[in-house]
């Protein structure tokens, strides 16, 4: 049986796990990790990409709309934040970040409109428009880059209450705080009526409509919230990880990476977004380290990166066939086996592998 919720949608176990995760994020890691490399090259991008993956989860994992353009919305959020900081310097950073997300959300609604007419692979192609249109607009109109010709614009400092958050640890704490808040909100929504409506539309749209769910509102809401999360993620990604703004950083490759994070991590799960982002980000690092340690440069770096692609492709195929619910499900099964607790949570979708 499912553990009983004691506070909102959370069971006692959920609260313990969430508390433990927050303690590790805000206390343990900052105390034990001294190396800047870990903050600026692993933890910060991991949290940013996980946030974008949560956005992708909303629209794809929960609402079932095959969308591919997360990086476009990330670019929108990043350049929105840059322009707000540039033109409205009086605005407090958290508010500026929020508005950047809102701008991305507005674009999300616009590019979500095709979902009302087309679905599946056709929708995927239609949403690619977001990817290309947003990047093209930023490149085409100099205003967005403040007529900078160098190609790379330095991101402004993050200043909150007069304090500039410039060291890797400080930036990590800013990112972690934003990601924590948005993750909790995401869990609240996906475990509540918002998530149920999305999943109903995903699983059987005509029945959802017959229960009084407006497909228009529900789909556009998923697109808007998805783009909001991607926009905030993109803004943080540019300001804390890249520390610069360049449209190339948000190309289609990044959109695909976020798509893979969601598929590998587990469709329709929030923890899957974190697991998937961690895997996609760390896998090349691990492969590189292992390659260097074992073969001492016998293997060329280009071959290692080629192996990386091959292994990625193979993993995605294997996951789609054998564990369509992704690593989040594997983790739950493992936990169930180790601790003997029930892995089934009511909101976790069961058989994604609908054989056509």
């Amino acid at each position, binding site marked *: 049986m499912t553990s009983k919720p004691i506070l909102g949608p959370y069971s006692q176990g959920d609260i313990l796990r969430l508390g433990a995760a927050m303690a590790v994020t805000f206390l343990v890691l900052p105390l034990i990790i001294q190396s800047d490399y870990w903050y600026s090259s692993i933890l910060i991008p991991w949290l940013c990409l996980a946030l974008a993956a949560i956005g992708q989860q909303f629209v794809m994992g929960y609402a079932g709309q095959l969308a591919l353009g997360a990086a476009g919305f990330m670019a929108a959020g990043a350049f929105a934040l840059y322009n707000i900081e540039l033109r409205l310097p009086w605005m407090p950073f958290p508010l500026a970040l929020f508005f950047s997300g809102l701008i991305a959300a507005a674009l999300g609604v616009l590019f979500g409109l095709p979902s009302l007419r087309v679905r599946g692979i056709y929708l995927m192609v239609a949403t690619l428009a977001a990817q290309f249109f947003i990047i093209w607009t930023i490149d085409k109109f100099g205003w967005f880059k403040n007529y900078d010709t160098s190609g790379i614009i330095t991101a402004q400092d993050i200043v909150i209450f007069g304090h500039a958050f410039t060291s890797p640890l400080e930036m990590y704490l800013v990112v972690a705080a934003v990601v924590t808040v948005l993750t909790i909100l995401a869990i609240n929504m996906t475990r*509540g*009526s918002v998530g*149920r409506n999305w999943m109903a539309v995903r699983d*059987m749209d005509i029945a959802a409509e017959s*229960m009084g769910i407006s497909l228009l509102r529900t789909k556009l809401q998923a697109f808007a919230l998805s783009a909001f999360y991607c926009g905030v993620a993109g803004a943080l990604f540019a300001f804390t990880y890249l520390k610069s703004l360049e449209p190339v950083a948000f190309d289609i490759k990044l959109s695909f990476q976020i798509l893979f994070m969601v598929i590998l991590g587990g469709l329709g799960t929030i923890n899957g977004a974190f697991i998937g982002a961690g895997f996609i980000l760390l896998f090349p690092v691990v492969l590189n380290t292992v390659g260097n340690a074992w073969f001492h440069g016998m293997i060329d770096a280009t071959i290692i990166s080629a192996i990386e692609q091959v292994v990625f492709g193979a993993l995605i195929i294997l996951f789609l066939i054998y564990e369509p619910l992704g690593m989040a499900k594997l983790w739950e099964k493992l936990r169930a086996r180790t601790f003997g607790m029930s892995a089934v949570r009511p909101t976790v*979708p069961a058989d994604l592998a*609908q054989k056509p």
Partner: protein
Amino acid sequence: MTQVRNFSIGGPVLEVQNISLRFGGVKAITDTSFKVLMHEIRAIIGPNGAGKSSLLNCINGIYKPQEGKILFKGEVLDRISPNIIARKGISRTFQNLALFKRMSVIDNILVGRRLHMSANFLQVAFQTPAATREERENRERCEEIVDFLEIRDIRDTPVGRLPYGLQKKVELGRALATEADVLLLDEPMAGMNVEEKREMCRFILKVNDELGTTMVLIEHDMGVVMDISDNVVVLDYGKIIADGPPEAVRTNQNVIDAYLGVAHD
């Protein structure tokens, strides 16, 4: 029927007036009219392809008939869309199961409470007192339905994993959760064994007796139809060939001809 009904049959609640539905050159329904009375159980029967499901789909707003109109509580249903019609108080089940397969039984039923929940996404995200109260109250209603349908043991199972008969039960549960005035049940007992059918009949009658819900159901099992329905509409080739109480319909020559397959003119 021997049960005591809390609600006696009243005036017309749903009026289908001269509707015709065509798919290209195929006439699914031709100039069909009938009235469903308040609190009654109305069966729609007829051979395969007679247009029964199409008729429900017209009432429910999935199809838009080319001619005619449908009145609900005296009001013409003209803005045809299933979610608008759901808001007016008509809910349904589907012939080929339209459950949310990857969601648990309780979550499926909770979706049926959609129109009783008004918290917006911000209220849900921030878990405002109004949103949590609404969620708790609606969950309680759904737990009652789970108990009523005797499906507590499968409460948390994703419905895609359940056998057909249980899925039919869950779909009825989801329709009941809407607390709609009129339920359209498209073959609620198809593919069930005698035992399951008897159980389903018991639920349908109990809901009708206790809550007064008007039921319009499509069913092939004549025994069931004769037992539970107050009135029966018989469709053949998209036309009504009989309309009345079960006994009258059973002896109607047109109906006998339609079922035994007499050549049409």
